[in-house]
C-alpha cells in the first residue's frame, strides 16, 4: 500500500488506512534510534530542503534528524537566511529552490495554505511542517503514534484538547486525525479562543475544563502565547492558568491511566504545572522521541516506499 498523494499537506485529506499505514511504518523506524549506527540508506541520494519561514527549533531539528537517519541530504533554509526578507515572493523562492532539484520541500510558514501553494505551483513533493493556524500533520501523526503505543488503539478513546484552539494548527490536525480514527474529541478553552463551526467538524466543545477532562484517556495541552493576552482573548495569564491550567487535582478527574501530552514548548505554571509535566502521566518527551520515527516514515512513504520494505531490519 502507498499514500495516494505525493504531498503531505494535511491530515484532513488522509484516509484511516493511510494514517494507519504511516503509523505502522513508523513502528519500523522507531528502533533505529536505539542502535549503535542510527542510520539507514533508505533515502540515499535524495535531497530535502527544510524551508522554515517561521521560527521552529523542535520540528526543524526533528525533520533534520529524520532526514539524516534516512541518509538524505538536508538543506536548511530559514527566515534569517532566506531572501523572503528581501521581498522575494513565495513563488520565486519556490522556483529558485526547485532549480536545485530537491526531492522534498518541508515547509513551515505563518500563512495557512502556503504548502498548498507550493504543491500547486511546483513539482516537488511538499511536506507541511505547520502552516499558520491550519495544520501540522506530522505533529498529529506523532501524537497518534504516542497514544497508540500507550493505549494500544485510537478508536473509542476520549481525548481532551485544551487551550488556544482558535490559533492552533496542532488542534486542527489532531481533531481531523482522531475523528478519522474513531476517537471522541473534546475541544476546550475560553469561548474567545474557540473558533466557530468546530461541532460541524466533529468535535464536542466545552469552555469548562473540569467537564472537558472528566474521564479522558488523553489530555492534550496546547501552548498559550503571551500575544493572545495582548490581543484581548483573556485578561491575564494568571486567570488563564487558574481556569485552563492542568494541575494534579484537575488531572485526577481524567481516567486513572490517562496520559498527558503537549506539543511543546511548555509554559510551566501557565497551561501546565511543573509536577504534571514531569509526572508519571506525562508522555511529552516520548512525543519528541517519536517525532523522528514518524517523520522518517512520512518521507519514506512519500518517496514511494512500500510498507513491507520499510522495516527490513526490524
Amino acid at each position, binding site marked *: 500500500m502507498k499514500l495516494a498523494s505525493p504531498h503531505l499537506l494535511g491530515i484532513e485529506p488522509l484516509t484511516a488506512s493511510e494514517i494507519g499505514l504511516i503509523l505502522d511504518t513508523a513502528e519500523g523506524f522507531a528502533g533505529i534510534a536505539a542502535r549503535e549506527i542510527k542510520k539507514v540508506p533508505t533515502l540515499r541520494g535524495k535531497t530535502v530542503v527544510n524551508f522554515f519561514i517561521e521560527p521552529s527549533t523542535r520540528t526543524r531539528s526533528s525533520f533534520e534528524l529524520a532526514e539524516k537517519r534516512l541518509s538524505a541530504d538536508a538543506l536548511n533554509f530559514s527566515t534569517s537566511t532566506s531572501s523572503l526578507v528581501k521581498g522575494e515572493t513565495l513563488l520565486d523562492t519556490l522556483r529558485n529552490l526547485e532549480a536545485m532539484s530537491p526531492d522534498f520541500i518541508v515547509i513551515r510558514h505563518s*500563512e*495557512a*495554505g502556503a504548502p498548498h*501553494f507550493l504543491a500547486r505551483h511546483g513539482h516537488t513533493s511538499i511536506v507541511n511542517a505547520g502552516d*499558520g493556524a491550519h*495544520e501540522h500533520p506530522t505533529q498529529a501523526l506523532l501524537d497518534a503514534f504516542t497514544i497508540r503505543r500507550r493505549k494500544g488503539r485510537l478508536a473509542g478513546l476520549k481525548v481532551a484538547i485544551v487551550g488556544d484552539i482558535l490559533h492552533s494548527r496542532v488542534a*486542527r490536525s489532531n481533531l481531523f486525525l482522531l475523528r478519522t480514527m474513531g476517537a471522541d474529541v473534546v475541544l476546550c478553552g475560553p469561548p474567545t479562543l474557540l*473558533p*466557530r*463551526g468546530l461541532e460541524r467538524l466533529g468535535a464536542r466543545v466545552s469552555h469548562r475544563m473540569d467537564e472537558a477532562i472528566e474521564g479522558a484517556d488523553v489530555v492534550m495541552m496546547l501552548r498559550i502565547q503571551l500575544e493572545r493576552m495582548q490581543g484581548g482573548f483573556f485578561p491575564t495569564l494568571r486567570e488563564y492558568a487558574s481556569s485552563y491550567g492542568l494541575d494534579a487535582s484537575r488531572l485526577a478527574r481524567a481516567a486513572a491511566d490517562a496520559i498527558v501530552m503537549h506539543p511543546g514548548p511548555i509554559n510551566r505554571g501557565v497551561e501546565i504545572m511543573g509536577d504534571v509535566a514531569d509526572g508519571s502521566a506525562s508522555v511529552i518527551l516520548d512525543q519528541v522521541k517519536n517525532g523522528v520515527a514518524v517523520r522518517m516514515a512520512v518521507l519514506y512513504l512519500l518517496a514511494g516506499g512500500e510498507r513491507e520494505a520499510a522495516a527490513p531490519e526490524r
Partner: protein
Amino acid sequence: MRLLLRNGRVVDPASGRDGRFDLLLEDGKVARIEERIAAPGVEAIDLAGLCVCPGFIDMHVHLREPGHEWKETIATGTRAAAAGGFTAVACMPNTDPPIDSRSVVEFVLAQARQHGVVAVHPIGCVSKGQKGSELAEMGDMAAAGARGFSDDGKPVASAGLMRRALEYARIFDLPVIDHCEEPTLVAGGVAHEGETATRLGLAGWPGVAEDVMVQRDILLADYTGGAVHVAHLSTGRAADLVRRGKASGVRVTCEVTPHHLALTDEAIASYDTNAKMNPPLREASDRDALLAAIADGTVDAIATDHAPHHADEKCVEFGRAPFGVVGLETAVPICLDRLLHAGVVGLPRIVDLLSVAPARILRLDRGTLRPGAAADVTVLDLDRTTVVDPARFASRSANTPFAGWTLRGAAVMTIVGGRIVHDAR
C-alpha cells in the same frame, strides 16, 4: 447620427414596457419607440430574438486610475464595461491619489472623455485622503461631477464622521456609500468566520461586523435624513436590517455583487486567492437570504465591485493576497444564468437591478428608454451560452473566480449615446 433597432423585445420597467418594439436613436437620444418605425435611409439593425434594455450601470467599480495603472486604467476598465454590457460605471475613489478633491474628479472625467468607452461617474471620498477624520470637499467634487461619496475600500469607521457626511451630502442630494465593516470586529480577518475558515485555519471576518455597521448607518440615516447606500451587502442579517429600515421610511438602499449571489465560502477551500474578496464570500444561508432579498425587492441594485489586481499580486499566500475580483465581464451572464434562468426573478426585475435602480440612487438621468432619454442601450441574448475565459477579458486583470464556468445568457451589444461600442451578436 441615427440608428434604428428593430424587432427586439424592449424591456423598460420605468415605462412599464415589455414587448416587441422598434427603437429609433437620434442625436444621442431615444427619438421614438413604436411597434413599427419606418425610417428610410437610417441604418437599421435587426434584433429579433434579442432583448433591448436601458443601458446597464455598474455603480461600483475600481478603475484604478490614477495610481494603480498596472491593475486597470480608465481605458481598459471602460472597455471591459462595454464588453460586459455596461453603458456606465461609477468608479470608487480609493486611487492614488484618492479622488478626494475637485482636481482628481476632473482628472478622472478628462481621462474618461479622452479614453473612456462608456460613461464614467466618479464617486468622491467622504474624508480627506480617505483617512476617516475630516470631510473631503464634497461640494466642490459634486460641482465637478461626483455622483456620490464613499471611502470604499475602507468603512467610515467613525460614527461622528458618518453623521456629518450624511448631513452634509443632503445639500447635493447625493448618497453616502458605505463599505460596512466594523474594523475592530474584522481585526485582520480574511475569510467568512464559520466552519470553512475554521477548517482552513484562516482568520475570520464575521458577518456581524457588517451587520453592526449597516444598522449604525440606518440609524444615522434616519436621524439625519441623509441617504445611505450600503455597498456590496453580503449577509442575510444585513439584508433584513435594510428591509426593516426601508419599511420604516429610512433613506437606505443597497447593492449586492454577482459573486455573493453565485458563490459561498466553499470557493476558498483550495486557498484560491481569486475567491478572496472583501466582504468575503459568506455561507449558504447568507447566499440564500440574498437571493430572497433580490426577489422581494429589498436589494436595490446589483453592482460588481470590479476590483482588478495583477496576477503577480494574487499569486501569493492566501492571507497576503489583496482582496477583490473582477466582475464587469461576468456580471450579466451570472445574473441571467443564476437569477433569470434559475427562476429567482424575471427580466424586468433584472433590468431594474442593473439599470433603473443604479440610475435612481446616483441621481443619473438614465435607466429608461422613454423618448427623450439618453440613447444608452444594452442588448441581451438570453440564450447565448458562454464559457468564462479570463484570457479574453478586455480588463487588464483576470482575477475571477468564474474561470471555466459555462453560463447561459449574455450581453451582446452595448450602445452609448447612440454609438455602438461593443457588438458580439
